[in-house]
């Protein structure tokens, strides 16, 4: 078992106009591990993760990948380090087709430097076939696709480029039960390949099914972290709602002090 984490985010802070959205939060992630990030709306989990994906620039704090400090100032930096993100909003360009979205920012090009649309479509057909065998609408802008189909395009984009670290922000929010199960299968498969996954979710069941550990945030601070096997639903709910750490969890800076 590797002792250096794949990712370590240490004392990350970011404020928007005086409001501390994330306040000295630290999380880590090991290869082949799924860490669930939990918390209310506005708890700061999406913001924290956007710092990692390069969408936001942190005010302070350090990020280490395999023990080495890295600079992530924009999404390109993050992608170059193998960090891929599936955003809650999916972040798809609705007016172009699946292949254009899959390769957005990383287009395949011909020898003349022009877009190689045919090659991109061919690759897209392969990836999408793996994720969603019923997907046929390759020529249509993604705005015409169903929620589940759009989600699979976003997932395909994240896994197609040999990600080492995958961030999934509410990956099953738009999905039906069957598709949710498919995503669960996919997560297990990626985990087996040694990819580390941050899973942000509202759904406790999802997290308990899929994650190895969890970290709870409240008001921008980390309440605590715990291995899934050490806590139960009620304990985690207590962390989310009251900020109270159950015995099995390691309290963070955001934990309720009086409980100690």
């Amino acid at each position: 078992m590797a002792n250096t984490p794949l990712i370590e985010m240490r004392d990350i802070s970011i404020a928007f106009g005086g409001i501390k959205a994330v306040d000295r939060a630290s999380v880590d992630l090991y290869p082949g591990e799924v860490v669930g990030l939990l918390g209310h709306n506005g708890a700061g989990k999406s913001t924290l993760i956007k710092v990692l994906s390069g969408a936001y620039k942190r005010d302070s704090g350090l990020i280490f990948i395999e023990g080495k400090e890295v600079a992530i100032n924009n999404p390109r930096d993050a992608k170059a380090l193998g960090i891929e993100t599936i955003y809650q909003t999916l972040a798809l360009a609705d007016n172009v087709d699946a292949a254009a979205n899959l390769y957005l920012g990383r287009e395949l090009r011909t020898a003349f430097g022009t877009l190689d649309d045919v090659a991109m479509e061919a690759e897209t057909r392969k990836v999408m076939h793996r994720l969603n065998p019923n997907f046929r609408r390759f020529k249509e802008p993604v705005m015409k696709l169903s929620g589940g189909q759009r989600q699979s395009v976003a997932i395909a984009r994240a896994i197609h480029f040999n990600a080492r670290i995958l961030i999934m922000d509410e990956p099953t929010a738009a999905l039906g039960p069957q598709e949710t199960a498919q995503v669960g299968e996919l997560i297990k498969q990626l985990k087996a390949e040694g990819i580390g996954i941050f899973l942000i979710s509202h759904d406790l069941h999802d997290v308990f099914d899929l994650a190895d550990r969890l970290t709870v945030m409240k008001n921008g601070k980390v309440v605590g972290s715990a291995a899934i096997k050490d806590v139960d639903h009620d304990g985690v709910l207590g962390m989310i709602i009251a900020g109270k750490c159950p015995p099995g969890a390691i309290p963070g800076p955001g934990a309720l002090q009086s409980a100690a």
Partner: protein
Amino acid sequence: MSKQPSSSASPALTDDGPVRRFLNATEIDTRMIGMIVALLLIWCAFDIASGILRGNFGGLLGGSFLTPRNLWNLLNQTASIAIMTSGMVLVIVMRQIDLSVGSMLSLIAVAGGVLQVYQLAPSLGVGHPAIWIMAIIAILALGTAIGAFNGYLTAYAQIPSFIVTLGGLIAYSGVAFLLAKGETVAPMDKTYKILGGTIPASWIGPFWTWTLSLIACALIVFAIVNGRRQRIRFKFPLRPVWAEATLASLGSVIVLGAAWIVNSYPWPPKLAEAYAKENNIAIPAGIEDKGGNAICMAADLVVRCVEGFTIGTGYAAPVLVAFAIGAVLTFIASRTRFGRYVYATGGNPEAANLAGINTKLLTVKVFALMGFLVGVSAIISSARLDAATNALGGLNELYVIAAAVIGGTSLAGGVGTIYGAILGALLMQSIQSGMGLLNLPAAFQNIVVGAVLVVAVWLDQIYRRNVK
């Protein structure tokens, strides 16, 4: 299954009538067909109306609209607006707007005029070949720079482009006025004037018109064959062969038809006569009028040397420039990364950012390209007028935006095609020139143009809602 075109995803449409099957198989944009039909209807209506006005109930082709002369002029007049419209499509697709193009055109044209008339001509001598080259380079550079400046303020200073370019609309025309000192700057360099399309040197004649048209046809066929080969390579569904053949022949017929029309427009008699005299070509008999005056006169509004000596005009330089720019921009928009990023950013700016696209720099580039195209139009407009004034580009911004919108560009961003916008420009110009032909008062013309814009967008909304 493999015979099914990939875009006909909706199974409800597959057992429709032959028209629908034809459209599905050829993958022709139905919206474009609508525009072409509208254009043809407008042309026919103006032709019949102008025929009636002349007391000539000849029905279709009895009027003066559908004559080679008028259509040739129409193309020439559309060129400047069409060029700017091509750039405006990309600006609007990126969810921006450029209201300053008209004032910018005036400013750039005046600057180019001042440079050649007051600076270069006195120092180098009138007609020196460096004059037109330096003027053109300076104009294009200035246009690109002003465009980039607009883009910089929009992207980096984060001032909405509406405000930036509204400021430009007001300010640039002021600069143009100061630069020209309120005067008309004239005349332009002789070689420079070739780009205006008003002098014989800028007409390429029937031979080159046919040659270029045949090359264009060959390119159409090549593009279709190449596309098919690519799809075979990756085992994608193919269009039926008959559909490909229809597309190729339709494209070729349009290209060759246009060539035939512009070649049918002869040089004006006076110019033809001068040319014949200069080159010692004997003017054939039978074209003197009863009074013994030389060559057929411009009688009865029909400028046509019925028998004898005629020279076909062919395409004029501005039209060729507009075609070239339309083709290049279509290529940029659909086949390059730059174009892909422009559309993706227009569709979802946040997604483009998260995908690692530098949308700020992209905005500057798009505005710079717009400025470059304004420079091209400034050259054409001032060369055509043989003068530059601070009112040269007046109201052009509105015609350009209107043409882009009529051509199917969505102000919400993300949607729009270059060819659609060029068709839109042609449609706008057709309405204006047709009403001019009917001697309608300018105030009435404005009312109609404004109404057409609003109605066109309304129809487009209905169309889009029903297509979905």
